[in-house]
């Protein structure tokens, strides 16, 4: 019985091998290449998809989700959050309106930089930066996290180097954007600080404005 089975296995192996060898080669049919001009012109077919939006050399940015944003603000400002002075966590209160999933009705977070997001980010930045500057002014200079390279009385007129150094520090802290001294990218921020000093005559107020600019800038809330 055993030898019979072995014989069957051997025979089927031979059959398979010979069968594979005996199958004739299929005829080679030359198909035309799949290009538009060989299709029915009335069909208006388009084999080529629309090219992606022009974004030369620019990585597609993505907005932080609400938790990331709140954590980033707290990290950059040394623990301050929106509504802290009133004991509210405003981002939590507005979570559903800002598209945070509740995992009942909504399971994915809306990460568009929508009109509502911009509005509430602006509100948050103004509240947080006010708290931050008030705290900075009450903190010894060596323990500060915002006015590190410049004091609250420095201006570009009195110490332009300190202003530039502090702005470079802040851009690295808030935007992860380390800049060389004299970089062109510092110019808008120096302009903002100087303009604000010009209209308020108060460098501390100008730093608050710079803080708002840093948080509401896409370099802060997107990556």
């Amino acid at each position, binding site marked *: 019985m055993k030898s019979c089975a072995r014989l069957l296995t051997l025979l089927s192996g031979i059959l398979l091998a010979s069968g594979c060898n005996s199958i004739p080669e299929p005829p080679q049919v030359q198909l035309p290449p799949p290009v538009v001009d060989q299709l029915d012109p009335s069909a208006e077919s388009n084999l080529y998809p629309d090219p992606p939006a022009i974004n030369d050399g*620019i990585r597609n940015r993505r907005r932080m989700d609400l938790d990331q944003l709140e954590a980033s603000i707290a990290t950059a400002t040394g623990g301050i959050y929106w509504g802290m002075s009133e004991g509210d966590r405003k981002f939590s209160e507005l979570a559903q309106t800002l*598209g945070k999933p509740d995992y009942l009705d909504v399971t994915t977070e809306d990460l568009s930089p929508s009109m509502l997001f911009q509005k509430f980010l602006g509100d948050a930045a103004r509240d947080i930066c006010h708290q931050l500057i008030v705290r900075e002014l009450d903190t010894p200079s060596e323990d500060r996290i915002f006015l590190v390279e410049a004091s609250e009385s420095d201006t570009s007129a009195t110490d332009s180097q300190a202003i530039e150094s502090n702005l470079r520090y802040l851009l690295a802290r808030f935007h992860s954007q380390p800049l060389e001294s004299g970089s062109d990218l510092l110019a808008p921020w120096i302009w903002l600080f100087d303009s604000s000093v010009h209209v308020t005559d108060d460098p501390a107020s100008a730093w608050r404005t710079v803080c708002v*600019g840093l948080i509401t800038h896409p370099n802060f809330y997107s990556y």
Partner: protein
Amino acid sequence: MTRLKPTRRSALLAALAAGAGASSFGGLSPLTRIAHAGNDASEPRYFVFCYFSGAWDILLSLDPRNPVEFHDGNLGSTLIQPGYDLLDTEDTGHITQPFISPNSGLYLGPYIGDLANHDHRLCIVRGMSSETLTHEAGRRRFLTGKSPSGLQARGSSGATWLASLLGAEELIPNLAVQVETYNVDQPTYATGMKVNDVPDLMQALEAGPSTVSLAEEQQLDELLRRSANCDSSERSPFWQTAEAARLNSVSMVEAELHELFDFQGSSDEMSAIRDHFGIAASGNNALQTPEAQAAAAVQAITAGISRVVSIRVANGLDTHFDEWTTDQGPIQERGFNAVAKMVEALDTPYPSIPGKTWLDFTTIIGFSEFCRSSMMNVNTGRDHSLTNACFLLGGNVQGGQVIGASSDIAMSPTKTNLTTGQSDSNGEIVKPEHILQTLMYDAGLLDGGDIPATEGGLDPADLRVAPLLALLQS
């Protein structure tokens, strides 16, 4: 408000109440008039989508059955169990039987609420199919007219398409309160502004507290504007979208529109709105109700802020257990009553076209993800059904009619002739996309073309169905 047995007197009182409500809205406040300026098209179109969340039991409202014909004795052959005798109405004295509506003779369920008073404008579409038993999929199917990929919505919301066509001039063309909204291929301005409730809407429209001076605000604006104009930012679609949204948010706040939604404010206008919609004068919860959302929709439309508003007028309809006997009817009815209040508030003169009312140009669409099963389950509740229904009224909708029918066995979807609205074995099963396509057709988005999309006609939203022409007056 519960629905008691309708009488001629109650109908008259309801009409008087409607008139009183209407007069409250007839005199537009200066703020309202300012916001409305510029809206001067001869055939303007506005839309309000009203979502009944959780899957409604249409036997209690839009698609009832006569309990004399459908009863426990023939349950095995009809597979329809109206269950009206199981409704717990001991405390309320509410009617439990279907009735014929007073003006148009529509056969309506006991919890249709005050919407029955507007039956001459009401069009009910029955025998629809949602083709799903999953809440998210059904909801997103109705919002977009496309079957989702899994639970992921595909395509833009119908509301977004309509706002894209109509709302370029409005400050918030597409407002969504507690309703999802999608935009994948339409301009940014048409993206729905989604808020969770009326207080959040007010907060979004109101300038937040700030110690930054006006001059500094202008400097900040300049910095962000210039940043968006850099070469690298101009090549970033994200950055450009973000900047457009920021500028819109600034315009929105500058318009000081929050006062329009301050329903607990002390002005006469707010007092009239509170009285009409039944909104409490204090307490934050009062602003999270269907009534407050309905009032917000009317304000957004009549103030010229929005072309399309989506609101959620009912929550908690997913009654699989015996809460069906106590909750399903009243929750639905509250939603229908809110819609009725909205109808009355919109039935006031349209400012720039004599003889016309806001309602003549505003189409209200009521929908749910699907309906509940025709048979009760062992827990005295109802489970999910593929069948659905919806209602429309106002605008160019032909009122006082029922389109299509669910079958008399198990209330299944049946085919409908899209032109006559009658049941027709050669017709099509009406789905959410038929409704959205009809709205787009009516709004002119199909460029007046009456060639069905299925035969090569215009179909910008790729809904692949013809409009349900029986819905429209002309």
